[in-house]
């Protein structure tokens, strides 16, 4: 087993409530897409929160390249892109400005190349000239495209997507799937939760069915 991204005996409960996830073991391979499926409240979002270091496990751990991700979140998050289902982004910036900020913050901004790459990415996502408008005026679909674009532009090794297609129209959904498949074929690893099984089928190589209790 390689040490790319491993989940070992992972468990999570909220307070003294029931275990949401227990005894979970999984190895994620580089360059694959894994669909997280299951009924509402089965632990898919909790698992993505654990992977994005916004929740901490009750037991077990997640390691990336042999290191527990919770020991140095900043180092781990350098290689991660995150698309949440409830984006809370600064309303008085445009998508362009947010993307530039993301690149500069992660020290990946290049004066000659970055504007062109941003432009290309937006075109692929069918994000029209309204990307110059303030984020506060965006629809939920435009917000999701903004999040997806900001995540992909940093060229992460892993991308975590929580219901990324929910608010997208058919054209945007198709464009997003094409982009994600291209990202995967270039070696990117995708973990995606969605209820849209048909969309997942066009992307995923593997599935994890939630709830995961006692490893099953």
């Amino acid at each position: 087993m390689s040490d790319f991204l491993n989940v070992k005996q992972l468990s999570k409960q909220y307070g003294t409530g029931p275990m949401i996830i227990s005894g979970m073991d999984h190895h994620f391979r580089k360059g694959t897409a894994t669909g997280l499926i299951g009924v509402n409240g089965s632990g898919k979002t909790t698992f993505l929160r654990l992977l994005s270091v916004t929740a901490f496990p009750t037991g077990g751990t997640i390691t990336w390249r042999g290191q527990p991700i919770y020991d140095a979140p900043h180092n781990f998050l350098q290689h991660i892109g995150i698309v949440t289902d409830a984006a809370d982004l600064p309303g008085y910036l445009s998508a362009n400005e947010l993307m530039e900020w993301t690149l500069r913050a992660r020290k990946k901004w290049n004066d000659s190349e970055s504007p062109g790459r941003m432009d290309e990415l937006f075109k692929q996502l069918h994000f029209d000239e309204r990307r110059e408008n303030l984020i506060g005026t965006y629809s939920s679909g435009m917000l999701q495209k903004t999040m997806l674009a900001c995540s992909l532009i940093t060229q992460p090794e892993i991308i975590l997507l929580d219901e990324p297609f929910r608010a997208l129209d058919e054209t945007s959904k198709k464009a997003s799937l094409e982009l994600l498949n291209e990202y995967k074929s270039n070696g990117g690893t995708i973990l995606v939760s969605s209820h849209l099984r048909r969309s997942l089928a066009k992307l995923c190589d593997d599935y994890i069915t939630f709830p995961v209790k006692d490893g099953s």
Partner: protein
Amino acid sequence: MKPTKPLTYRTIPRRHTSLARKVTALVPGVVLLSALVWLSHDLALDDRIVLFRYLAMAFAACMAFITPHLLFPDNDKTLILQLNPSPRRLLLHHLVKLRALWLFGLAAAAVIAFGDSTTPAQQFPEKTRLFATSTMALTAIILYALYRFVTIGERSQQWSEGKAGRRLFQALDSVGKSTPVDAGMFPTFMSTIMVTFVGMMSVVVAASIPQVHLATLPFVLFLGYSGFRLRRETGRFDRLYYQSDAFYDELFTNPVTGAKESRDPATYEAIYWVPPRWRAAVWTQIIQLDRKRPMGRIIALLSLTYWLLIWLGTPESWHAGWLVFWILSKNMLAWPVAGPSLSPPVFHWWMMPPGDWMIVRFFLQTRWTLALILTVAAAALFSAAVSWQSVMIWAGADVIVSAASAWLITRNNEFAFKKQYA
């Protein structure tokens, strides 16, 4: 594509704040500073030093209570994850969040030290030394509070999941008592006590040193200790930040503990004193607030402290000051009930007009007015320091503050929503 102009890069995201919100935040500060100017304008230097000690003690108590609420859960988390700032920048992010309170403390200290209308130029070096000492004390308190609350995540999660504190809960169970809040809050309570205690003790120790030059030493040591502890945590500040934020996020905004409630919630019938038109709404607001905060115990603590101050024979201005604190605390503690997680604007808009919600909040705020009346009346019964007339004065003040508070929080939630979409 239109070339984007380079942004001034700051890791700390800034949200746009409307002028109305800025004014709302500034008004209490300006009122408090004005009161301080009025109190201190003709004081002698020794009295100014005493006033500074009160300020430092109040500041310690305030920081002990308010720090976790200011820092966690972080409203900017989506953006923080996107930008992925370094541990050092996350520390700066937290320091910036506390900056407004620090500046307010310094402004208050400056008023105490230099706000002398009778002899402004006299004893200037002594006044400057007092200001420098105040700056050190207030900075030390803020840094210590930040250190305590940012390092709390791991322990809090263990308490919350029942991995820590088993003996305490077994002891409570054996005497038939249950805890009023999530067990994960115990480390927060301990930190609240520690910040208050250490902050106040530094003032007490400084006050007990007769040599003026050496009286600054406790604050120098306190500041050095707090700075040293925070400095030591800088390297792993990202882990501390994400773990504490995760804990408070689960506690404050995702109360899905699944644990059984330790007390039965208030019933609809118990809200008989509210007219039927608003009763259901007041009832749901009350049970939500009670699940978030042990309001009854807080009110009892505020009243007991008031009686203690009277029993100790403290000056009447202290009694009045504490009752002002009583009323403001009671009102401000209910403010989270108007936040979007407890009062989703769309749902509220659908339920009834914003004006009605203002009345609902007024009833929510005044449900403790009777407790205030009984508190002051009991004091009037046993102490000559409190007059019967004051009972009605304080009740009236509470009703006015409750109305103002109801207007303010409804304006920021339901009325703001109406203005945006209607």
